[in-house]
């Protein structure tokens, strides 16, 4: 079946910065990898770590968490918690020898359309290199 492998990547984006940044990238006609599926949230602080874990276990090849830069959160401090949650997921995955590289955190502001295009491409390329998430074939989850 594998001719050209396009990964499936889920991105959780806050509406104020990253989603707007992604929008800007689109309006500026920058190339965004077709592998990215975006879910918009009011704040990156709304990204329940279980969303990320569930996406991973349900077969996403990569999961992105994106929000405003630290200090710029629309709700003052939501993204500081996001950062800790990312670190928590990362550490748990690391201890269990699960693929930490498939989970990714990036701060993208509303004006950083270029950065959005850049990091999504980089992440998508990395995931393409890693190949499909092995959970896709695992039955006994």
């Amino acid at each position, binding site marked *: 079946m594998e001719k050209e492998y396009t990964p499936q990547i889920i991105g959780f984006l806050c509406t104020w910065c990253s989603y707007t940044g992604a929008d800007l990238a689109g309006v500026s006609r920058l190339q965004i990898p077709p592998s990215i599926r975006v879910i918009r949230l009011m704040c990156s602080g709304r990204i329940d770590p279980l969303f990320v874990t569930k996406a991973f276990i349900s077969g996403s090849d990569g999961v992105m968490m994106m929000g405003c830069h630290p200090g710029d959160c629309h709700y003052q401090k939501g993204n500081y918690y996001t950062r*800790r949650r990312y670190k*928590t997921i990362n550490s748990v995955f690391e201890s269990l020898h699960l693929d930490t590289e498939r989970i990714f955190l990036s701060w993208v502001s509303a004006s950083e359309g270029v950065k959005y295009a850049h990091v999504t491409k980089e992440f998508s390329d990395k995931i393409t290199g890693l190949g499909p998430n092995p959970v896709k074939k695992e039955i006994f989850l």
Partner: protein
Amino acid sequence: MSDVLKIKKPVEEGITEFLKFLLEKNKVKGIFTLRKAGKTDSFSYSLITDVEEIKNAAPLTPIMPANAGQLLSSFTLEDAIKEPIAVVIRPCELRAFVELTKRTQANMENIYLISSTCAGVFPLKSAQNGKFSQLLPKYWEAAKKSEVLASLRPTCTACEHFVPALADITISVVGNKNLTEECSLHLNTSKGEELAQGAPGNKTTEKLNDKELAQLKELRLKEREKLFASVNDKNLGLAGLVKTFAPCLSCHGCRQVCPICFCTLCDFDSKTHEDTASHYQSELNQKGGARVPSGTIFFHTGRMIHMAVSCVNCGMCSDVCPADIPVATLFSMVGESLQKLFDYLPGRDLEEPAPSETFIENEFAGLGE
């Protein structure tokens, strides 16, 4: 240096006598401690209010039918205790109690905390064949000599936090050569001093036996390495996790007895995580097969993400697991890394906020840039 009350009795008798004194002299209105429950080898935590009942107290019996932190949470969840009580609990139970108090699931008001330098407990299984009492002489021997007994709960053999952090009174057990002759109660706080005032026995000043404690710590750390290697030698990863949790019944007993999992309805038991028929059918289409019920690995990793940073290594989860999965070892292992990451030790300090409830502005600088 702290004041020490010495009672000329074997340690368990001594502490029982002390508890009796507390109740008799009305220093407290109740004693929360392990107590014989009905038939041989059954022990349960109890709130004793009648002096007569003290004779059934078994405060240092090396068994943990439930993490006392969880029980004290149920006791104090609705409101603080109005009348003073003394509790005799183990260090990991005390740490769980502190964690729960931080999360407003428990209240420490009016509670005198008595704990011990802890030599560990036996698995619950060892109290089911009527031979539990035969284990005890060896237990006390090992405690005296600061040795690790292999038959203890696995997490106990690998526990480095066996000296209680916040106890008002610490019973000296580990490496205490005199424990069959005398009971030493270290009075760590003014509350502890207050309790011991007028108690039978002699007062001296003394330090805890640091050397012996350090010796046990060293041994336990070695065991810890071995224990973690035992779950890791499947190298985990997805395949290893699948194998480890292959026999899991999804009974969620591990979560039910975990003192840190205090949610009345766990997210993983809620409707949110009950999969639909269409989910199973799409799994079937994609993979040719699907485990039913789904979500075994998700539950365990998710629970780790929720609470492992506060895991107190008590071992309850492993002990109730009907599928003999080394749940506690895994949670301790994952928990240890998380605790290092956030420079956090569950239950060492009531004022230290749980990592998920706080942040430092300039931590993890550069991440996500």
